[in-house]
């Protein structure tokens, strides 16, 4: 494999030529990914930003990881049996896992179960770590292991092996040639033996004790800027042609969806871009190569759809500027978003008055329930961020009292309805984004603020949320207000309520999945004027984003409630799990996921269905992915990812991007079985997916914009953090970059305006009124546009005539006057609607 790559890089193989080696794509891709990371990890290792601040815990992190690399490199690559992702070292999962989610003990998938699971499955690997000789598909553990490894290796290798460093840097310069590989193998072998000694030292601690404080500490350490490091010079790139080829290869892998998570790769590229050598002379050229490679890849990839702040940081990054001015120029659009204040579910006499209840008692109980529920919600809002606050301790008994009253009065269905509506109202859309944004901002602050580290640390600790993120593939979480609803359900643990909720959620979810988005109410309008774009498209986009955000929320909660009974904090042993699978295979699942998925593919509605399906599947319990229905669904998603999305073309670009992002995320979170992605036995589904019956569907319309992308994938904000961290390290040169960080204050001065006009107006009105108004407004505006168009057409011809034949035109003046009036009226109507 390596030989193939080497010869490829040396230009010995051309596309048309017959390969001397036979490798399947499934084997080659992981190899390439590994290769890239192996080559570059040294660069990341040299990061100057963490001198001596390395927490002791990371030693074990390193020891878990490095030997596998060394082993891999020492064995002759050609002879080495390539393994699939299934055999990747499992400890790494565990380690990164714990690092990612250091504190949230409540979340089902972050409690170290992952680690034990891996060990349980791969006994031999776990017992003999030093013998692992598989090419670890790096994508599996990269997001965090990379930053980790750089911290660890500076701490470890600086004192222990100073002489090897220049060599290693030198080796990088000629990366790709057989000689350099040989050298590197040697180097790694040496390093491994050193590591072996260190691993056995008593200092070894598990990374499980890594706490948020530690993370803060580490981030704080990044603040030390490396003032002397000169900027890499694009003219000094040593292996231009090889790097170009490699970049092309890599880009193909990404664009063909051969990598599990595209954004992980992008994250990696940004890491390379922002990598820094410790000492100037040694690593500058190597760094230059890395940056060159990264910029080449970035030029070809999806960067331009990242958010404003990221793009700004990226375009202001001096390296991007010097290496590719065209890339820098392309990085220049932005979009803003605004958030709306949450409100309560209004009382509707039609559905909520006495006639809707079986008894007076039920009616009056529900009256109290509503107030109690909102009381709990308010108290949670007020206090859940206080340190040491605990849902169970603070609200547990009140929740249970309330639920028991519900049971006594038998009004579960009403409460379930209220609960569901309130959930949707508070948690769909930008609210979630807003609240989860706090954490990254806090991180940014920690990285950018240079002076009073202690105060910043304290500030950050105050701001740290349970779902503090790191890396572009965070585990599934319940951000913002969702946390309240989740805790409420857990605390209430009321089977009647859960059942009613499941019914309601499932019903609404499937209804949303079917909902018509393309031609809101009147289909002829769309057909006759395909070009009248903007208005229609804007309406469509908005509708879609509402539906999508609601659907994914419902799916997540439906899945949460459905799999709640099966959730375990510890990974069950294989036997128990097998027994559970047998037991559960007989009962019908809450949702026929495969049928829904297939039908969505046939009707070309994958952009909607796949997205909420990902949310649904991300909440599976340990045994879930092994149940046939869910496994098939996962395989289907894989197929969609590799086959349908990989080909592109029919799908709109942003639609595709969103799907790639969420699917990539699913493939990286721990619940996704590791062996699935690179396995080849999924072909039979493809055919089925190929016969697409309907020619037009949601998928072919541009429905996704950047705002929606970021709302759905808040983890894309990680790019920004990475770039900001780099800025913090290069203040001296780029002058006042840091000064551009503006404090994000609460949105003021909505005072004089109507805050959220339409929402407020419709709040207490029956939903039918809203639908009616929307319909009327839509029709009026559409007609207006038509009128204005025709008027402008006439105007143009009028002026044309005026130019050609003034006399005749004067006669036309009267009709022109009419046109003008029409035009004004039309515009007025437009504004008023």
């Amino acid at each position: 494999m390596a030989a193939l790559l080497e010869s490829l890089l040396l230009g010995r193989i051309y596309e048309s030529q017959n390969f001397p080696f036979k490798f399947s794509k499934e084997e080659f891709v992981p190899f390439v990914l590994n290769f890239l990371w192996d080559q570059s990890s040294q660069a990341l290792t040299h990061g100057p930003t963490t001198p001596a601040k390395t927490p002791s815990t990371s030693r074990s992190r390193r020891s878990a990881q490095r030997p596998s690399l060394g082993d891999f490199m020492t064995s002759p690559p050609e002879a080495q049996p390539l393994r699939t992702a299934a055999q990747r070292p499992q400890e790494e999962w565990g380690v990164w896992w714990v690092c990612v989610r250091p504190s949230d003990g409540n979340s089902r998938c972050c409690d170290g179960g992952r680690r034990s699971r891996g060990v349980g499955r791969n006994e031999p690997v776990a017992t003999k770590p030093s013998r692992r000789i598989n090419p670890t598909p790096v994508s599996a553990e990269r997001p965090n292991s990379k930053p980790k490894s750089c911290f660890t290796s500076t701490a470890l290798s600086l004192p222990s092996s100073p002489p090897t460093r220049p060599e290693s840097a030198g080796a990088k310069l000629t990366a790709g040639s057989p000689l350099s590989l040989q050298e590197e193998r040697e180097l790694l072998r040496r390093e491994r033996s050193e590591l072996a000694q260190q691993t056995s030292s008593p200092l070894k601690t598990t990374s499980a004790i890594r706490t948020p404080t530690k993370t803060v500490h580490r981030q704080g350490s990044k603040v030390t800027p490396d003032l002397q490091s000169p900027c890499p010079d694009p003219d000094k790139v040593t292996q231009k042609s090889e790097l170009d080829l490699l970049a092309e290869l890599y880009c193909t892998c990404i664009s063909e969806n051969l990598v599990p998570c595209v954004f992980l790769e992008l994250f990696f590229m940004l890491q390379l871009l922002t990598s820094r050598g410790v000492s100037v002379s040694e690593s500058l050229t190597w760094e230059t190569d890395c940056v060159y490679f990264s910029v080449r890849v970035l030029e070809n990839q999806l960067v331009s759809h990242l958010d404003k702040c990221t793009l700004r940081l990226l375009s202001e990054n001096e390296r991007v500027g010097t290496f590719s001015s065209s890339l820098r120029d392309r990085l220049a659009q932005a979009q803003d978003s605004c958030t709306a204040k949450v409100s309560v579910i209004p009382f509707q006499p039609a559905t909520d008055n006495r006639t809707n209840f079986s008894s007076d008692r039920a009616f009056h109980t529900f009256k109290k329930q509503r107030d109690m529920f909102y009381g709990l919600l308010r108290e949670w809002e007020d206090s859940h961020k206080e340190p040491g606050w605990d849902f169970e301790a603070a609200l547990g008994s009140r929740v249970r009292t309330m639920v028991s009253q519900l049971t006594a009065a038998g009004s579960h269905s009403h409460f379930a309805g209220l609960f569901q509506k309130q959930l949707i109202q508070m948690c769909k859309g930008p609210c979630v984004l807003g609240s989860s944004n706090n954490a990254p901002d806090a991180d940014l602050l920690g990285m950018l603020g240079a002076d009073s580290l202690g105060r910043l640390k304290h500030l950050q600790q105050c701001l740290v949320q349970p779902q503090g993120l790191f890396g572009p593939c965070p585990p599934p979480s319940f951000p913002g207000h969702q946390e309240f609803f989740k805790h409420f359900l857990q605390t209430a643990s009321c089977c009647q309520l859960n059942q009613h909720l499941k019914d309601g959620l499932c019903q609404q979810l499937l209804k949303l999945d079917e909902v018509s988005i393309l031609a809101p109410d009147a289909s002829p309008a769309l057909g006759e004027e395909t070009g009248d774009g903007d208005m229609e498209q804007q309406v469509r986009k908005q509708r879609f984003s509402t539906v999508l955000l609601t659907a994914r929320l419902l799916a997540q909660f439906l899945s949460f409630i459905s799999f709640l009974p099966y959730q375990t904090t510890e990974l069950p042993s294989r036997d128990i799990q097998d027994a559970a699978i047998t037991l559960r295979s007989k009962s019908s699942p809450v949702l026929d996921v495969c049928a829904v998925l297939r039908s969505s593919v046939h009707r070309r509605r994958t952009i909607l269905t796949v997205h909420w399906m990902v949310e649904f599947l991300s909440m599976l319990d340990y045994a879930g992915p092994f149940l046939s229905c869910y496994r098939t669904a996962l395989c289907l998603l894989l197929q969609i990812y590799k086959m349908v999305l990989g080909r592109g073309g029919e799908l709109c670009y942003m639609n595709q991007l969103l799907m790639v992002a969420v699917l990539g995320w699913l493939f990286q979170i721990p619940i996704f079985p590791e062996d699935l992605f690179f396995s080849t036995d999924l072909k039979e589904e493809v055919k089925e997916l190929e016969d697409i019956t309907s020619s037009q569907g949601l998928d072919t319309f541009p429905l996704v914009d950047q705002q929606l992308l970021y709302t759905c994938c808040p983890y894309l904000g990680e790019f920004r953090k990475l770039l900001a961290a780099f800025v913090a390290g290069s203040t001296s040169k780029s002058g006042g970059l840091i000064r551009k960080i503006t404090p994000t204050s609460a949105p003021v001065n909505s005072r004089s305006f109507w805050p959220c006009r339409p929402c407020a107006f419709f709040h207490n009105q029956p939903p039918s009124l809203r639908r009616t108004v929307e319909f009327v407004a839509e029709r009026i505006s559409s007609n207006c546009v038509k009128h204005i168009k025709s008027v402008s057409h006439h105007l143009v011809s009028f002026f044309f005539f005026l130019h050609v034949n003034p006399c005749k035109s004067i006669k036309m003046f009267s009709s022109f006057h009419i046109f003008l009036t029409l035009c004004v009226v039309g515009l007025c109507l437009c504004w008023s609607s």
Partner: protein
Amino acid sequence: MSICLCPGPLIDSGVKDKSVKRMQICRAEYRVIGRFVEQLRPTRQCMKTLQTQFPHLPPSTLLSIFSQEYQKRMKRSMARHHAPDVIKEYYQRYRSEAKTRPAAPLLLELANQVDLSPALLARLIVECFLEERQASVGASRHVLNNMLREPYLIPDLLLAKHVEQCTVNDCCYGPLVDCIKHAIGLEHEDLLRDKLRETHLSFLDENQLRAKGYDKTPDIILEVPIAVDGHIVHWIESKASFGDDHSHHTYLNEQFWSYCNRFGPGLVIYWYGFVSELDCQRDRGILLRDGFPLDIVTLCQGPARGRV
């Protein structure tokens, strides 16, 4: 509705004064008033003293504050006055004095001496009187209330006269005060409706809401919301009293939060003012005002001046 008795012209004082005098009082100032009020009795004389002490506040506001503070005081001393032997002693004292000097306002004097509301004292005495007369039959509440409302139903004419004196001279308790409070409440609700009509705002009032089967009914629900000071208002509750900590928290739990939970953000008008620190739930959907807002922004016309 919790309303205080205004001596003299009932309604107008509050509304007229408002434009001139400040009615939002900070908590510290409220405490000063509260302490001063401690020593006062519910008499006209005392009301005058209060007004001279705090001339910058409208008399109606002062009365409302006094009334609420006095009610708190009465509740605190309830146990002391309602012990059976104490009641017996009051009754004996009244009886013996009634024999010696029947023309004097005996019950008023006694109430003043023991620091009990005259109307409450009258109630205790009539209760004893009834018990004494028909020892076998427990005096029914209904009969008792009727006698207090219409003192000349009391068989003992002298007692009737004394009870009437109490009812008339007590500005915090008694059937007359209840009646006035109720009237003031209605009056202000009406005032609110008038203002809304004047400003051309469409609304549903309490009775219409009740008919529709709403489980909680604020005084007004606006059919088209307005914005006041940048906050949306869906409902309006009129309170013809002063909003102090105690009453506001009771209202919050029993009414305001419930309205918020059903109809979204709204406005509470404390016509006689409130403790300014209490207006801290604006972002949560409860806005406090001491009169009909002048800075209403409606949905279609943008900022407009209310005509008051």
